[in-house]
């Protein structure tokens, strides 16, 4: 694939899909964003997510309780699905990108980097954190009438995670990544 200049892309002549676009410093940028995403992911998981007050009682939940509550109320399969969509898939993406890119930027590869790469791309469709955020917003509208809802710091961490992880995955030039992995291995 020839080098692209600013603003250039490669377009499929048949179906008009965009095959490759000019992404300056794609791997550095992606790695930096993945580090931010990892920090936000930590905040999102270990701080209170939402607090609800109604009639003198209050509940405060962390993000993972949206999974464990389903399990506790007799829907283990639903709990598993939600766990994969909002916790599992983002974990694979963040850890995978860091595992592959951080050594690659120093001109090295760790064992199994190519398989990890495939996992990152394979898990991407199942990463539904932005859909979950919309779900949270809808739930807040639903609860607004009956209770006082306070957003915790984890909610904002989760929002940051969505922005950084999406940007990190979008920043990667797939062709460059695969090509560099292949040349380093041989």
């Amino acid at each position, binding site marked *: 694939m020839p080098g692209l200049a600013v603003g250039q892309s490669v377009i499929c002549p*048949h*179906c*008009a*899909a965009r095959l490759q676009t000019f992404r300056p410093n794609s791997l550095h940028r992606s790695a930096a964003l993945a580090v931010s995403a990892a920090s936000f992911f930590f905040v999102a998981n270990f701080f209170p997510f*939402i607090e*609800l007050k*109604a*009639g003198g*009682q209050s*509940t405060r*939940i962390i993000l993972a*309780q*949206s*999974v*464990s*509550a*389903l399990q506790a*109320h*007799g*829907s283990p*399969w*639903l709990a598993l*699905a*939600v766990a994969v*969509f*909002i916790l599992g898939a983002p974990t694979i993406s963040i850890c995978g990108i860091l595992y592959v890119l951080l050594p690659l930027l120093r001109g090295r590869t760790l064992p199994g980097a*190519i*398989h990890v*790469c*495939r996992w990152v791309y394979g898990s991407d*469709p199942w990463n*539904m954190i932005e*859909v*979950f955020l*919309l*779900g*949270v917003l*809808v*739930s807040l*509208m*639903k*609860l607004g*009438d*009956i*209770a006082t*809802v306070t957003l915790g710091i984890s909610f904002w961490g989760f929002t940051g995670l969505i922005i950084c992880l999406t940007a990190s995955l979008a920043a990667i030039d*797939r*062709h460059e990544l*695969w090509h560099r*992995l*292949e040349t380093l291995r041989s």
Partner: protein
Amino acid sequence: MTVFHSESAAARGLAICHGCDKLQPVASIHCGRCGATLHLRKPHSVQRTWALTVTAIFLYLPANLLPMMRTSGFGGGEEKTILGGVVLFWEHRAYPVAIIIFTASVVIPILKLIAIVTLCLSTRSCSQPRAMTRLYRLTELIGRWSMVDVFVVAVLVAVVQLGSLMSIEPGPAAVAFAGVVVVTMLAAMSFDPRLLWDAANRPTIQP
């Protein structure tokens, strides 16, 4: 036997790896870069897509007919289906939320099923492969957003546990609906849009 377009890579025995996008001779069986098995087209693409689509249609019935969640409190309990929830929001004048839920939970799944069936039928003969490929990409893009209602249930079940005051339980429709979304996503993934171009390229047989 598929006849590939004479200018295509497939006609020259070249396949693109489904794992890492490397173009290489299909005769080498495994990708030299990432080790994935090479195919000119996704194997049994149309059969798999049909099977998953039929599964999704069957799951769609309980997803809409059974309750999505059960609310209980001192005012008694109540069960709400997906459409029931939409109607409730509409009555409470929360129009944007009603529209979001209706679009994500009713319109998108139905449109997605119709789109996948159309795509499968188009692999027999296809006059507008470019438009159909666009339809495919759109189908892949919007499918995940149907999961909103399932996440609403997950959040509400976790947050609303106010002892005797009020509590919310997930209903059987929530699992069925999550199933619909997962299965339609798998159906879209197993479909190979290049089959549309093969169909467009196929010489029409005169009766």
